[in-house]
């Protein structure tokens, strides 16, 4: 509450305030001691992943017999692991197929959650209707319910209720139910975060638009959406990482045709775990996309963290 009494803030000012916050945090965290601690933690944190990457390029027998650090004294590298997990025989991976499954699951799920979340957030912050606050509290409260509780009932609906029962149980149409499941489970958080962001938008803008004769649909499209693009981007990244890394939903609702990469990686090691050297390459294949997303959209990611954490 210590911030200034803002004079009619424009869209730029909202973003400006966020970057001012970012600057403050940046200033606080640049003391040499903090830097040293951060570097040490980051190094320790990265060592296992680094070992994983090195291991994934080592031959099977080396992985099984010795630790990855021995590679420095006795280097031998191969692409065999990647070849096997990406394009191997039909049941020992073929992660290339499941990689696409993950894309097909993740991208629409993120799009749908953002779309519906933004609509809901708009209705909850800029439309006046009875019981609005109660609905908002209910949505917020739903975050507390663990999604595990909904798995069996939801599966029951998907397998017997119309229109889902029309889907071929083994077919690729089953992606639809995974989308719906992810969107359902993601909605409370997306709505909540977008609502926070949207209700900070200056009311004058909406009023001016209304005076000019814009209805809600028009205001949403022409004024709100352009202003919340940074929020959409950062929440989109969170959702993307969450859905990409999800195992449980994919495992329960996926079939052998539609399961995501994570579920396929979990089965890579073979019936009795004898092929665990494949996990090194498999894990790295599943990590590549989240890493790329994070590195290329880091800016939004940090902004999203700040949007949630530093209010007022």
């Amino acid at each position, binding site marked *: 509450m210590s911030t200034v009494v803002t004079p009619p803030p424009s869209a730029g000012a909202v973003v400006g305030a966020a970057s001012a916050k970012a600057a403050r945090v940046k200033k606080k965290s640049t003391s040499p001691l903090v830097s040293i601690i951060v570097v040490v933690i980051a190094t320790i944190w990265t060592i296992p992943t680094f070992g994983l990457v090195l291991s994934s390029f080592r031959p099977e027998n080396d992985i099984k017999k010795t630790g990855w650090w021995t590679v420095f004294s006795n280097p031998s590298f191969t692409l065999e692991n990647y070849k096997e997990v990406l394009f191997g025989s039909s049941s020992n991976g073929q992660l290339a197929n499941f990689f*696409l499954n993950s894309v097909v699951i993740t991208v629409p799920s993120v799009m749908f959650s953002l779309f519906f979340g933004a609509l809901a957030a708009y209705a909850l912050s800029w439309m006046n209707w009875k019981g609005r606050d109660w609905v908002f509290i209910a949505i917020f409260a739903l975050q507390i319910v663990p999604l595990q509780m909904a798995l069996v009932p939801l599966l029951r609906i998907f397998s017997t209720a119309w229109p889902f029962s029309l889907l071929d149980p083994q077919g690729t149409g089953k992606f639809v139910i995974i989308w719906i499941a992810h969107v359902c489970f993601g909605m409370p958080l997306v709505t909540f975060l977008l609502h926070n962001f949207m209700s900070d938008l200056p009311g004058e803008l909406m009023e001016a638009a209304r005076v000019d004769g814009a209805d809600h649909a028009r205001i949403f499209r022409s004024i709100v959406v352009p202003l919340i693009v940074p929020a959409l981007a950062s929440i989109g990244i969170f959702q993307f990482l969450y859905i990409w890394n999800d195992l449980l939903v994919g495992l329960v609702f996926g079939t052998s045709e539609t399961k995501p990469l994570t579920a396929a990686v979990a089965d890579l090691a073979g019936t009795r775990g004898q092929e665990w050297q494949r996990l090194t390459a498999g894990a790295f294949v599943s990590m590549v996309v989240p890493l790329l997303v994070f590195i290329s959209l880091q800016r939004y990611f940090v902004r999203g963290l700040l949007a949630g954490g530093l209010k007022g």
Partner: protein
Amino acid sequence: MAARTWRRGSTAVASALGVALALSACGGSSSGGTATGTAGGSTGSAECADVAQYGTFNNAKVEIYSSIRDVEAERFEKSFEHFQKCTGIDIQWNGSGEFEAQLQVRVKGNNAPDLAPIPQPGLLQTLVGLNAVKPASEKVATASKANFPADWLTYGTVNGTFYAPPLGANVKSFVWYSPKMFKDNGWAIPQTWDELLKLSDTIAKSGKVDKPWCVGFESGDASGWPGTDWIEDIMLRTQGVETYDQWWQHKIPFNDPKVQDAFDKAGAILKNPAYVNGGTGDVKSIATTAFQDGGKPIVDGDCAMHRQASFYANQWPEGTKVAEDGDVYAFYLPPVDPAKGKPVLGGGEFLAAFNDKAETQAVQLYMQDVNWVNEKAKLGDWITAHKGLKTENVLTVTDQTPNPIQILSVQILQDPNSVFRFDASDMMPASVGAGTFWKGMINWVTGADTKSVTDSIEKSWPAS
């Protein structure tokens, strides 16, 4: 400006999505299309005469959900090719590492598979309790009665109704060793439990290897299961089958002196610092050594004996020859009192059907067809308790030569003197057999005493 960039960005994402969808559609159809049956089949031709009795179907699909995956699943798929072509039934093999948990979720969510080979009679009981499993058809029941030994049928039976015919089998009462090492040192294969202990002493004193035994209990979520096999094998040997049955049926408590005695007998080897843990460390290292790596020190010459099931044959490093004259082989874990016969501990799967569609029953019946059983064995590294399985058809995967360890397993299974018993932990309620019993073994081997471990397992037994 920002808005315009965003819009352009979203078009790019949308088109990327379109491409991805199209690609996945291709991927899906190509992997699904590998095993298409010509609907209607060609029953008339001589080629299909052997499976004519299973009928022909149009557009029928049967999903088999299983914990068997990877190359082993591929061998199953291969074994179905002929049947699929002739009957028009498309069999989809769906293997998952989370099979035990997922099967129950799918059943409760009205999304059960058509068939599932269940490795635990305890789980079969649970599923029957949920009214999920259909009793075997009359045809299946009659065929099973003719094809399998009577005790195997009891594991597929719940409350007097026969549900699930046996599928694969494995024998667990084996001790792996290096024939060359034994020969070089003049060690003989022990025929009784006392000889086994005496041999352990000899090896420990000889100093030829690090320690006589190597053991590994670690196995992820299932850590501890190799330990339960030790206790079960010793229960069978010291107490006989009647007490063994009372034990897993909980007619005697888990902390009964007889059970504690079995723990102590196992402890004489597993908790003896002079005997374990070859090539790895002290007694406690048993808990952290992976089951997959448990026997590896034999190949490295650090340990002489490793008690593990026949399926451990797959775990040896590449290039290890498994044969009586090879690098490693296994001998039958000797009985305490040879006069009481040859108790054999083992495991296997039971093929439960979750609906009574004609195609489901046809596949269930086909999976005990004597031709299929022998063809499946020829693909390698797979045996069953089926009486029609011929040992000459039990081959290895790699070079399709006779598979000595599996042939030995079949001989033990088919030996009229063998007294076969199913793995007790698989028949106990899951909260014990796949829970406290496993954890108890880890606690026990890391220092807890027999009494406190058996007491706490007894306490965890579900009431009813």
